[in-house]
């Protein structure tokens, strides 16, 4: 039994306090203890008029091919310039193939998206990480990898998983294409101050249980809309012990409970990760940067609008059974069968089970499936590949299962090859592919066929997410790898 301590709703609501209420950001909030969200917010307010949203400065915007073309059109139609090309970084990830000859895109629209971004970047002087630049990859993998993501920054991208960058103590969130255009033209956004929520992960994870499991547990408790309007700060012993890769997985999934962003205060782990990265401060001024970054930490006694505590010691690996990321259980537990539900919630539950062809009351252990996917901005980093490889080493992927291992970036791929992980995957019968978003969202050639089931290290199990009528079970890379060996859903504990 995992011990989950979640503050009851009533208690949580009573903790609402006034700091967030209205009033301008810059004046009052310099007094009294402030949390990390308030500190980053306050340091990025350009202007605030009562009754209006704040003008909020953006330090870095990441671009990819799917949500940027219309934004370039907007600014060009208005005869505006890209105001701060030095604050933009672009790459291609969503609609590109992950086979070897990936530059040959057969889908004309997808090819045009890629070419459009390449041309737009060239025209506006924006760094563009193209195929074989050595740094192409999923935007949320390459930002941190290049050291472009840094503590105290504000980062946006036309992609909801921008929350990933919060692992570095940055305030990072997804925006739509209109807002991408606003940032291009002005370097700023109109923003309402977000509310804050503290999630404390206590204790430590058992062997075979990872940060993916911890965040899936959180989402299963608070629901897909549980953090709407809030930025989550993740704290606690378990977080302190995590690597940057693990922290990124947690922050990445913040959006799956509706949070605007997820943040983790920077510490030695963060600084060690950044040191020596291509776009990080150089050695001669690194210490000075660290001193600045150190200021972005919640003060003791600082308040949050909501607080949740989760004890992780007894947590087992998580897996989703339904059609949104909150519909998850610990492996071995039965699919819930709640009695008290509104008509609407009951219908949603029935629809989810009908879609995934499962029954309430039953466990998922032993469920056969056809596809296994390790990759995505959630779990496509080197550490994720190492974990999958450690389980697959000397083993074979079960007959009837197709396994894709898709590195999050060219640099992750190169590192994996250097460590010989490619051989491990190939010997196991898995496909080690080229970097991109791949099978996470069925925008490219990598799709789960209709009616087939995939155990996936990605972030969303929405209906049709991995392909029309495909069924997704979200899990950690370890659970994906162990299950792939058996051809049935299983716990990685037996393989570690």
């Amino acid at each position, binding site marked *: 039994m995992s011990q989950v301590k979640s503050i009851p709703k009533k208690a949580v609501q009573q903790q609402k306090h006034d700091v967030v209420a209205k009033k301008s950001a810059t004046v009052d909030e310099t007094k009294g203890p402030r949390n990390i969200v308030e500190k980053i917010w306050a340091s990025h307010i350009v202007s605030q008029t009562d009754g209006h949203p704040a003008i909020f400065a953006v330090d870095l915007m990441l671009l990819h091919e799917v949500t940027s073309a219309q934004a370039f059109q907007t600014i060009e139609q208005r005869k505006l310039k890209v105001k701060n090309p*030095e604050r933009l970084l672009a790459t291609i990830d969503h609609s590109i193939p992950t086979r070897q000859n990936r530059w040959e895109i057969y889908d004309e629209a997808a090819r045009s998206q890629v070419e459009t971004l390449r041309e737009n970047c060239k025209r506006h002087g924006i760094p563009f990480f193209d195929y074989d630049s050595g740094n192409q990859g999923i935007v949320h993998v390459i930002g941190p990898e290049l050291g472009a993501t840094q503590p105290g920054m504000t980062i946006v991208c036309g992609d*909801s998983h921008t929350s990933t960058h919060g692992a570095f103590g940055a305030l990072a969130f997804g925006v739509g294409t209109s807002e991408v255009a606003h940032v291009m033209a002005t370097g700023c956004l109109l923003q309402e101050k977000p509310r804050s929520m503290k999630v404390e992960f206590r204790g430590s994870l058992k062997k075979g249980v990872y940060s993916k499991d911890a965040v899936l547990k959180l989402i299963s408790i608070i629901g897909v809309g549980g953090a709407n309007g809030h930025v989550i700060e993740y704290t606690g012993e378990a977080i302190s012990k995590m690597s940057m890769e693990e922290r990124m997985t947690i922050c990445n999934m913040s959006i799956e409970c509706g949070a605007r962003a997820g943040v983790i205060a920077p510490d030695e782990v963060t600084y060690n990760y950044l040191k020596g990265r291509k776009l990080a401060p150089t050695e001669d001024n690194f210490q000075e940067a660290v001193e600045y970054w150190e200021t972005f930490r919640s003060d003791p006694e600082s308040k949050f609008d909501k607080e949740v505590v989760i004890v992780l010691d007894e947590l087992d690996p998580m897996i989703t059974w339904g059609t949104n990321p909150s519909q998850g259980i610990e492996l071995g537990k039965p699919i819930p069968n709640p009695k008290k539900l509104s008509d609407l919630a009951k219908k949603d539950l029935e629809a989810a089970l009908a879609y995934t062809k499962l029954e309430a009351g039953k466990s998922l252990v032993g469920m056969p499936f056809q596809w296994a996917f390790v990759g995505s901005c959630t779990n496509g980093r080197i550490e994720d590949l190492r974990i999958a490889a450690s389980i697959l080493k000397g083993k074979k992927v079960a007959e009837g299962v197709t396994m894709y291992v898709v590195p999050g970036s060219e640099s992750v791929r190169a590192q994996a090859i250097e460590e010989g992980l490619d051989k491990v995957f190939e010997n196991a019968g898995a496909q080690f592919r080229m970097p991109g978003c791949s099978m996470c969202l069925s925008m490219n050639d990598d799709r789960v066929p209709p009616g087939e089931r995939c155990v996936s290290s990605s972030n969303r199990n929405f209906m*049709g997410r991995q392909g029309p009528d495909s069924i997704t079970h979200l899990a950690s890379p370890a659970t994906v790898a162990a299950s792939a060996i058996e051809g049935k859903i299983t716990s990685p504990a037996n393989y570690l």
Partner: protein
Amino acid sequence: MKKFRPISSKVIPLPKNDVDTDQIIPAQYLTSTSREGYGENLFRRLKDTEPDFPLNQPRFHGAEILLTGYNFGCGSSREHAVWAIQGAGIEAVVAESFADIFANNCAKNGMLLVTLQKNIIERLLKRAETQDVYVTIDLEKQVVTVNEGLATEKHYFEYDPFRKHCLLNGLDDINYILSHDKEISDYRERNEKTWSAPSTKKNDRALAIAGTKN
């Protein structure tokens, strides 16, 4: 952006919670570089798998208001979701609540989102199962009027005053932000020394690493 005017329409009922943007428009339809042409793939899967889905029924043709449950628009940040809804002729969505990024995207496209209490939403969705429900939304007064024969019920809804001003006057954010150009330059100057401000030198580094030639 066009100015928002009161609308009266039959509602299109979508009795679901947590409708995600992958359901609104699946990713495989996002490969266009334009803002047009997404309407026909709005709720593509529901249209293909549920013959009774309202958008398959002629009696909902031309309806401009969508009625749904809790946390509508969760998931991906794709603005294509808003373009698809607008492309299908829908001007407003009435729901118990909305996901943040989706709500933001709607505001930037002149699409009105109205939040009503759970019990009202559930009652209206129930009623829509057996009969047509007609609704008028007046943003100026922040009132939703439900018409049923000779009887009407009125529900006040909350709406951010700044957003209301923008919607009613067809204003978008770019001009508002641009009008603060001086403050933006001052801010950048003040913060030039902080570590979060990339220098031109750093841009050169990024361009060099990317191998981008300009």
